[in-house]
């Protein structure tokens, strides 16, 4: 198919409406790993070549046409670029690719248009890459169960967006709506620092004690975190009695049986809690309430209802959310995992966290603009109260905007 004199190799289906945001925003979702040694450029380049064979689409040029995302034949080579900063995506700096790899000293960083791959997709690609790289670096076997290494798959085997997934046979569920937005607390003190695009800070939570607590109450890591954040907000604002809204990332892959897709196939859903829900009952009941809401939202019928809505109204954001959990999961590549010292994810958002388990710790990156430190301290204190000793490992720092040229 020829569009605007360019040859489209693959049509990824109806696009995510935040494609337009991707075209303008200064920062895109990125995952960064700090390794034990400095990066070996040659090994990284080879690992990147191998990764592109597993996911050939990431080596094409994405563009929108008629509200669809198309992948066009590419000129030039997409290579790992030595740079402290991420480079501007879909620009000459990255040969117009929507996914780009940079490295510096002992850090490798992969960034992507959010409308091309979602957080889960970005992590899957990065797992493949890191597994190839570390295996080659340490000269061990590359095959690790659960890490994708198959070559030459057809794009439709690993690229199915939620925009292609409309169901006809399901019981429609009423999606979560606020009765009145004025009842929802909005912390207007959380604003972006005017000197940078995003502020981020990092908190380490020991996995074993956190996991034990989650298991005790039968909740997942993100559900526990929503509770901790809710507690923290009412602790920071003891007079506040408005409701709190939390956006919790919900993966659609298992409902639609598309486990291998790297395309956008997840969305945040709102969990709304009253002061009574959070502070008016004990931890067990408070968590049961959250669990009830989330179990319903994770049910197949609810997800199918939400996806039908997404396909019509393209939800961009939940209003007045005091926390968005952008991702909650694990970064695991078998024995190679221990070679990674730190994992961080960032994106262009505020009032949000990424939670990634790496070995013995859950790495939480906080993005709360100029209130990042305040929120980290508050959550740390709340976790202390739960008997969990977390640690602020990185004080709030500015995430630089993507640059036109490598910065070394």
């Amino acid at each position, binding site marked *: 198919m020829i569009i605007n004199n360019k040859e489209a190799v693959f049509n990824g289906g109806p696009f995510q409406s935040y494609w337009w945001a991707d075209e303008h925003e200064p920062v895109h979702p990125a995952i960064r790993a700090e390794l034990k040694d400095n990066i070996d450029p040659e090994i990284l380049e080879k690992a990147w070549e191998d990764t592109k064979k597993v996911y050939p689409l990431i080596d094409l040029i994405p563009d929108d046409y008629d509200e669809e995302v198309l992948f066009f034949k590419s000129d030039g080579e997409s290579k790992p670029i030595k740079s402290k900063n991420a480079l501007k995506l879909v620009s000459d700096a990255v040969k117009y690719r929507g996914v780009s790899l940079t490295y510096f000293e002992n850090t490798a960083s992969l960034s992507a248009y959010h409308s091309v791959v979602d957080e889960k997709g970005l992590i899957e690609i990065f797992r493949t890459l890191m597994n190839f790289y570390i295996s080659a670096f340490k000269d061990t076997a590359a095959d690790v169960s659960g890490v994708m290494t198959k070559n030459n798959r057809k794009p439709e085997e690993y690229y199915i967006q939620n*925009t292609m997934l409309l169901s006809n046979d399901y019981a429609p569920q009423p999606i979560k709506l606020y009765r009145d937005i004025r009842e929802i607390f909005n912390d207007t003190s959380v604003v972006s620092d005017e000197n940078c695009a995003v502020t981020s800070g990092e908190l380490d939570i020991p996995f074993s004690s956190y996991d034990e607590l989650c298991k005790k109450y039968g909740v997942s890591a993100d559900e526990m975190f929503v509770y901790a954040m809710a507690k923290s907000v009412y602790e920071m604002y003891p007079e506040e009695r408005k409701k709190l809204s939390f956006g919790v990332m919900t993966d659609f892959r298992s409902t639609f049986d598309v486990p291998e897709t790297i395309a956008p196939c997840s969305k945040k859903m709102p969990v709304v809690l009253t002061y009574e829900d959070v502070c008016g009952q004990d931890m067990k009941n408070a968590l049961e309430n959250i669990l009830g809401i989330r179990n319903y939202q994770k049910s197949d019928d609810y997800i199918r209802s939400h996806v039908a809505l997404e*396909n019509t109204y393209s939800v961009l954001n939940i209003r007045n959310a005091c926390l968005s959990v952008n991702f909650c999961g694990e970064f695991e590549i078998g024995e190679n995992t221990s070679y990674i010292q730190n994992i961080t994810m960032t994106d262009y958002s505020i009032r949000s966290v990424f939670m990634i388990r790496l070995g013995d710790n859950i790495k939480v990156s906080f993005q709360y603009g100029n209130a990042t430190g305040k929120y980290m301290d508050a959550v740390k204190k709340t976790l202390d109260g739960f008997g969990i000793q977390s640690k602020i490992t990185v004080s709030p720092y500015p995430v630089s905007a993507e640059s036109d040229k490598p910065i070394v």
Partner: protein
Amino acid sequence: MNRTEYFNGGPMSPFWWYDKETEYHNKFSVSLDHEIVPDKLSEAWDKTKKVYPLIDCVPDMVNGEIVFYKDDRENPPIKSSRPIKPGTDICAQRAFVITYYENKITMSSFHSVIDGGGINMIFSTLLYFYLESYTGESDEQPPVETRENRAPDEYYKALATIETGEFEQKPLITYKKRKGMFIDLDMAPDENGDIMSSRIKVPVDKFIAACKNIGANPSTMMTILMSKASYKLHPERDGDLAFVLTMSARKTFNIPDTIANCSTNLLIPVEYSDIMGDDISKASKKIRSVIDYQRGEDFIKTFAAFFETYDWILAKRYAVLTYIGKLDIGKNTKHIKGFEMTDDATCTMFMMELNGEFVISLQFGKVTEKYMNSIINILSDFGVESEIETAPYAIIKDSDTAAG
């Protein structure tokens, strides 16, 4: 600046940012059967401002809400052949500005302050006063608002400020199959950035008879006309289409007097087989039921709550259709020879009744003429002969200075 707060209108509409940027504000114009008499227009505008004192205030956004301020400066009608940008110095930062030239009067306004229904109300009052003074004839019971000195909350209540209370959440309308749905990529400004518009007119009795034949109401007929034009102009496409109908919620919420934003958007998905099949009355019935469903009080409340909870963008929206109703200012309506309404979009169709005719405004950017011709043909197939009232032309951009 010395300003006194007069009224808080509640949550600011997202149109506020659009109003600050656009060069094409919502405009409503009429042509009369004589050259405008400036003094009489000025007098009529002063009287209109007594009926709607808010329109003589300066709006601003304070903590996310729209606040109206009293202001000493004057905002008289401006003689200008090109429209004036509201919110600028020349109109003393007012959200409403009246221009006149030869036989034409135009009102340009901030969409964040008012919707199409509100514009129609204010403009009708202005025209009533003006023509009353010009002809010396008045109506015993004017069909327009003429009461003075009302409190602002008697005539300014936006849909966003309505207390919803408890309501039954209704399922929203969703697409059945998004892949394959299409829009017309040529509905866009031309190379010079100009937006084209055109108008046709049809006799009301003929149009209504054609509607009755297939069981349609005017909004349904507009949807059918636009869908048929879309499929006929794109014979290679048979995917579903989506239209937005804007409709006033004044009746539903029992606030007939409000000039504030009180419109709700109805989503009308359309299938090829319905529109291009043998029996158009089936399509008509289906569209009407989708419209009626979305006009219910619980549905509108659900939809308003949806907008309060999520930021969203409608995917694959083909065109926006608005049936405004009737321009009727009583006995003197006959002195109004034409009307036009424009905005900054390249996918809008407005329809309004004036003196026994429907004026259908077609604003489709580069392909305005194509759609106009197609709709003329489709109307003819329904037995309705139309006339080109205004051939495609480029809408004049708003300016902050008067011209010629």
